[in-house]
Every structure is written in structure tokens, then in C-alpha cells.
């Protein structure tokens, strides 16, 4: 730590803190740059001598292999660049699904642990203690085996109303096919969302000024869900369904949820939920009981107390660790490769890397994706912390 006060006495220059700090930094900086340069130089020399192709030209070459599941159009005639996108989207899909399920389950667990019912709180505690102390990879393997072993052969599928089928190849659901006129419904839906945002703002302003409340939630619900549904039926339900049917070896048509996705989703969300449950519990317990009592003393009833007093304060404690759990979940989704779910690591850092042999570029791209994801989440967290930080006087 540099001393701001210049000392009068004649200290030797190497005892002067400012000089020492600068000298030290220069040495450190040179060492760092040197190390990186050495690594870079080695890599370049090694790659050149071994005749390894470099550069990103491979992204435009035809891939020539199939991928089990893709959210965008893909077949073996597409490029390696496309395989990157397919993998990326699959990673995002499992992350979003996982975050969604883990949050719901985690909040249920957190509340259950605080339940006054002894049995329920103990079950939640046992769940948390078991799940969070067992490695995720093991849980993924376990679920995959459990899913595959319980599900039957396609010809003996579980059949729900002849439109949903469940077997070892996945869960088959009817796929919606929009017909002419459906666009109107979509437009209405999005307009309603925007309108609700404005109504909410207006309502808050009015409440600040006049104290009058406006039923924002009900209005929003009606606009976003009610109006499009009514219009949908007025237009004569312009949507048909593509039903899956057993043709040859497998079910064709509709939407397939592959068992790898199911197993991974189960494992990721159940594992992360255990951590979220603890975060939620700590958050709720972190709000002092005086707050509840004060709210009750002001005559606020139980539900509004929860909604207006306890939850906002608990969220302040909950959200920072919650986001880092989300980040963990997204990174943990890379374990998908162990059971063959085609995520970014499996497809791009796996098959594409193997077919092209360009390890350096591909690993760098893959790591960059996760790095960007984590920096975005960190940025969000900082923004949130600044917004929510207690304004202390």
C-alpha cells in the first residue's frame, strides 16, 4: 500500500514504498507478458512443425455428420459453423429448462424446510442433504440409466390419448402447426405485453401521486392471456397439430424430447434445486422477525405482508447467490457429453473437433462462449446489487 505522505528522511530508494510498488509491478508485468509470449511462441512453433492446419476456414466446410437433436434446421450437408450454433442452442435450451425447473423446485424446498409441519421440513432437509453431497456426474449417470431402464421399447410405448407417447427413444408430443391467421394472435400477444408494461408504470405513478390502486395484475393477465385466447377462437382456432405416429422403427412427426434431455434435465434441476432451497431458506430467515411484527402492527394482513414486506427483503439476500447457482447450472450442463446429449461440448468440442482436428480454435471458441455467458451473468449481478443495495443513511 503506497504511502501518500512523502517522508522527509533520506530513505534508500529501495525502501521507498512508491518505488517498490512500481518496480514490483514492472517485474511482475514483464514476467506475465514473458510467460504468455513463451506459451504462445511454443504453441505456434509446435503447430507449424507438426503441420497442423490453423485458422477458422473449417467453419465453412461441410460437416457430414448427423446430430441427434437440433432446434434449428440441420442435416449433414450443413457446415461446421452450423454445428457450433446447434450445440450452442442445445446448451442454452438445457440451461433455460434447468434454471426454470430448479428455481421452482428450489423455492418449494426452501419454503418446505421452514414449514411448521415436522414431516415436511424433515423431508426437505433430507432431500437437500442427500442431493447436494453426491457428485452431479454420478447423478446424471444414475438418471440416464434409470430413465432408459424404465422406459419401454417403441413398439410397447406408453400411450396417452393416442397423441402423447413415451418410450426409450423419448417423449413424443404433438407439434403445433400454425395456420393462416395465427400471426394475428401472436401480434396481439406481444402488443399486450408491451401495453401491460406501460399500464404498470402509469399505475405506479398514479398510486404515488394519489394513493389509488389499480388492479395491474388482473388487467395484465386479461390482456396477455385472455384477449389472444378469445381472438384465437373467434378466428376459428387457426392451428393444427402434427401427431406423432409409429412408422417403421420409430415414431415420426410431432416433437420429440430425447431421453438424454430428460435425464440431464432431471439431474441438473434436482441437484441445483438442493442448493437453491438452502439459499431461499437463508434468505427468508435473514429477514428479521420484527419486520413481520411491524407489518402486522400496521394492520397489514398476512398475505400482503409476505408479498410487500418479507419477499422483497428476502429477494435482496437470495438473488446474488441464486445467480451464481444459475451460472453453475449452465456450466454443469457441459457434463451432458457424458451421456450423449448433443450440447456445445459434446457436438462442437467433441465431434467437430475430432473431424477437423483443430483443437486450439475449437476449444478457444467453446471456452469463450461459457466465459461470455458468465461475464454477462456477473454484469447482471453487479447491476442488480447496485440497484437493490440498501440506501443507508
Amino acid at each position: 500500500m503506497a504511502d501518500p505522505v512523502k517522508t522527509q528522511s533520506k530513505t534508500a530508494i529501495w525502501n521507498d514504498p512508491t518505488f517498490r510498488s512500481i518496480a514490483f509491478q514492472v517485474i511482475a508485468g514483464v514476467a506475465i507478458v514473458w510467460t504468455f509470449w513463451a506459451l504462445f511462441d511454443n504453441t505456434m512453433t509446435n503447430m507449424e512443425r507438426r503441420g497442423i492446419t490453423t485458422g477458422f476456414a473449417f467453419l465453412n466446410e461441410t460437416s457430414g455428420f448427423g446430430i441427434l437433436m437440433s432446434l434449428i434446421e440441420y442435416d449433414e450437408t450443413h457446415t461446421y459453423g452450423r454445428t457450433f450454433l446447434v450445440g450452442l442452442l442445445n446448451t442454452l435450451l438445457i440451461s433455460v429448462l434447468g434454471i426454470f425447473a430448479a428455481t421452482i423446485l428450489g423455492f418449494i424446498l426452501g419454503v418446505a424446510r421452514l414449514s411448521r409441519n415436522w414431516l415436511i421440513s424433515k423431508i426437505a432437509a433430507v432431500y437437500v442433504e442427500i442431493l447436494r453431497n453426491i457428485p452431479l456426474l454420478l447423478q446424471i449417470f444414475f438418471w440416464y440409466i434409470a430413465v432408459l431402464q424404465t422406459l419401454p421399447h417403441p413398439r410397447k410405448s406408453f400411450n396417452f390419448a393416442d397423441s402423447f407417447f413415451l418410450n426409450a427413444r423419448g417423449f413424443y408430443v404433438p407439434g403445433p402447426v400454425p395456420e393462416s391467421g395465427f400471426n394475428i394472435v401472436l401480434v396481439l400477444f406481444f402488443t399486450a405485453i408491451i401495453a401491460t408494461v406501460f399500464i404498470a408504470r402509469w399505475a405506479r405513478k398514479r398510486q404515488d401521486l394519489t394513493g389509488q390502486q389499480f388492479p395491474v395484475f388482473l388487467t395484465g393477465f386479461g390482456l396477455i392471456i385472455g384477449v389472444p385466447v378469445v381472438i384465437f377462437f373467434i378466428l376459428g382456432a387457426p392451428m393444427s397439430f402434427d401427431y406423432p405416429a409409429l412408422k417403421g422403427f420409430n415414431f415420426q412427426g410431432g416433437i420429440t424430447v430425447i431421453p438424454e434431455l430428460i435425464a440431464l434435465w432431471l439431474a441438473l434441476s434436482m441437484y441445483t434445486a438442493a442448493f437453491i432451497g438452502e439459499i431461499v431458506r437463508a434468505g427468508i430467515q435473514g429477514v428479521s422477525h420484527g419486520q413481520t411484527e411491524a407489518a402486522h402492527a400496521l394492520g397489514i394482513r398476512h398475505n400482503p405482508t409476505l408479498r410487500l414486506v418479507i419477499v422483497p427483503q428476502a429477494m435482496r439476500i437470495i438473488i446474488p447467490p441464486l445467480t451464481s447457482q444459475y451460472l453453475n447450472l449452465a456450466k454443469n450442463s457441459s457434463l451432458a457429453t457424458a451421456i450423449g446429449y448433443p450440447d456445445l461440448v459434446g457436438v462442437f468440442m467433441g465431434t467437430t473437433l475430432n473431424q477437423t482436428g483443430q483443437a486450439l480454435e475449437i476449444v478457444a471458441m467453446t471456452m469463450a462462449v461459457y466465459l461470455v455467458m458468465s461475464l454477462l451473468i456477473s454484469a447482471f449481478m453487479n447491476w442488480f446489487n447496485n440497484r437493490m443495495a440498501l440506501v443507508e443513511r
Partner: protein
Amino acid sequence: MRDFKALPDLAPPLVARGVIGWARENLFSTPLNSVMSLIVIYILYLTLVPIIDWVFVSSVFLGDDKTACEGITGACWAFIGNRLPIFAYGSYPAAEYWRLETCFVLLLFSFGPQFFEKFPYKLPLGIFSLTLFPVICYFLIAGGYFGLEHVETEKWGGLALTLMIAYVGIVAALPFGVVLALGRRSDMPVIRTFCIAFIELWRGVPLISVLFMSSVMLPLFLPDGMNFDKLLRALIGITMFQSAYMAEVIRGGLQAIPRGQYEAAKALGLSYWKSMSLIILPQALKLVIPGIVNTFIALFKDTTLVLIIGLLDILATVQAAITDPAWGAVATEGYVFAAACFWVFCFGMSRYSIKLEQKLHTGHKR
């Protein structure tokens, strides 16, 4: 004046005492609660009975091959018993098991007393277990000296390997984490930037990509002919990864120390390193012990990922064993066994951290 004396309290009514009272209070306090309790009890009945039956009642504990488990509906624990040496020691030569066992005993003796309140020599033993112990064990396990047969790291495996990776990772990640955390809060911009970049980089990428790099790509970054052991590289990868997490935990502790402490240390004329090691770090580390132990637990669980790069930890040996046709379908037993092993260690660590936290709570609360 009359002396008023309260009569002794009446005993609570029967419905508020004993099992019935407890149940009324905790299970059937409201109608909704009662319904939920009954539902939960029913679900527990439905799930626990078959599980207990599978684990204990219809299972087979002893036997040498698949014939012992033919026609049973429960678990085939005989398989676990049969393969126990492999699960514990991997493909380490059987004649040399005593070396691993010696290390384990040594670990118990040096680390075990830390769990007891009033044991003397805790500090020297602790220092021994963190410094000399890993070195002794390395020479003992790897061999090649003192007439011991050399055992290549490829043959290390099973639970022994898992424990080794976890132990080395834990011992190495803590000091690195401390250095990084201090660097991140340093006044020197070069150091600070480097530490921030280092921490965010490692925290931002998945561990399996780190392990992939360290296991197959690292020689590409090094000069020709310079190479070191695969296990060592995996260890470095894990240590770097965890020390970044550790650094963030410790930074939390450093931030929680009031500014006055830093200023007081400075006012006493202590140098940076002295004020850190004597004043700040002891307080900061104490504050974040739960976080540190949580990082250890995460590290312990993360050791399973080494199976993806071909090291044979306990999960990998279990996986190899359950695909062996000699035993038939024993996948569930194998995974349950591996899960139980991990659970025991992780749960033990988390309990220990809670105890430690209570003990170190020396009352600086304001």
C-alpha cells in the same frame, strides 16, 4: 406481610404431552397440515418400504459370482463385496496395498485429532498433515526409492485416487486462493488486473474443458519434449480452477473486515505481509470458514470429472465393473455404492464446518 407463593404449575394436559402432544403440535396443527401429513406419510410408505426391501431384506450380501444373485428381487451387494479391492485401490498392485493403507492410517492419525476438542499437539500435527504428509505419501505410493517398487500413476485408481486428488487439490487451492484474493484487492493495478482476469477466466469456463486442455492439449503449449505426468496435469487443472473459487470466498472475508483493522495495523508500523498474516487474514479466514469448506466439498465432488479424461477414480472403476458381463445387471448397486462413498465424505465435511463455525464464534458480534 403475607408471603405469596405460587402453586406449582399443573402438568400440561395429556394431549399436549408426549408423542400425542408432539404429533398434534408438529403434524396436525391445522386441518391443512393434517391432510398434508397424511399424504406425506402415505407417500413415504409407498416409497420407503420397497427401498428398504431392496436394500436390506431381499438382497444378497455374500457371494463370489453372479450365481449368488440369481433370482433375487433385491440388491446384489455381493458384487460390491467382490469388487471392493478394485473400488478402493484401482489397479494398484495387490502386493503393494499396504503402502496405500499406511498412508490412510497416517492420514487418520495426523488429521483425525483435529476433530477432537482437547487433543494436545493439534497444531504440529495439522502442519504435518498439510506439508510433510503429502510428500511422504507421494514417495510411499509412487515408490522407486528406498527399495520400493515403482508404481506408475496409470495404475493408481479407485477411492484412493479420488482421495488423493481431493487432498492435493484442497491443500494446494487454499494458499493459491489466498494469494489471488490478496492480489485482487492490491493497490497495484498490474497485479490487480492480472488477478481479476485470472479469477474470472477460471471461474467462467466449465471444469471439463479445463481438464480436456490439461490432459491432451497442454504439451502443445510447452516446448517440445517437455512433458509431465497426466495425473499431475489434471491436479494442476483442478487446483487452478478451485483456487479461483477459493479466492472469491476469501475476498468476501477480506471485505468484511472493518477498515479500522487495516488502519490500526498500519498505524502500528506493520509491513504489508505482517499486517496481512497477523491481523487481517486470521480474522478474514475465520469469517469465511463455511465458504471454504463448501469449496472443498465442491472440489471433492468435482474430482469425478477426471473420469472423462481417462483417470480411473472410484466412479470410473465402478462404471467399468458394472459393464462386466460376469455380474449381469448391477448398475444400480454400483452407482448407489459410489454415491454412498461420496456422500459420507461430503456430509462429514459439511457437519465439521458447522461445528467449527460454532467453535470459532468468539463473540465479535456487534
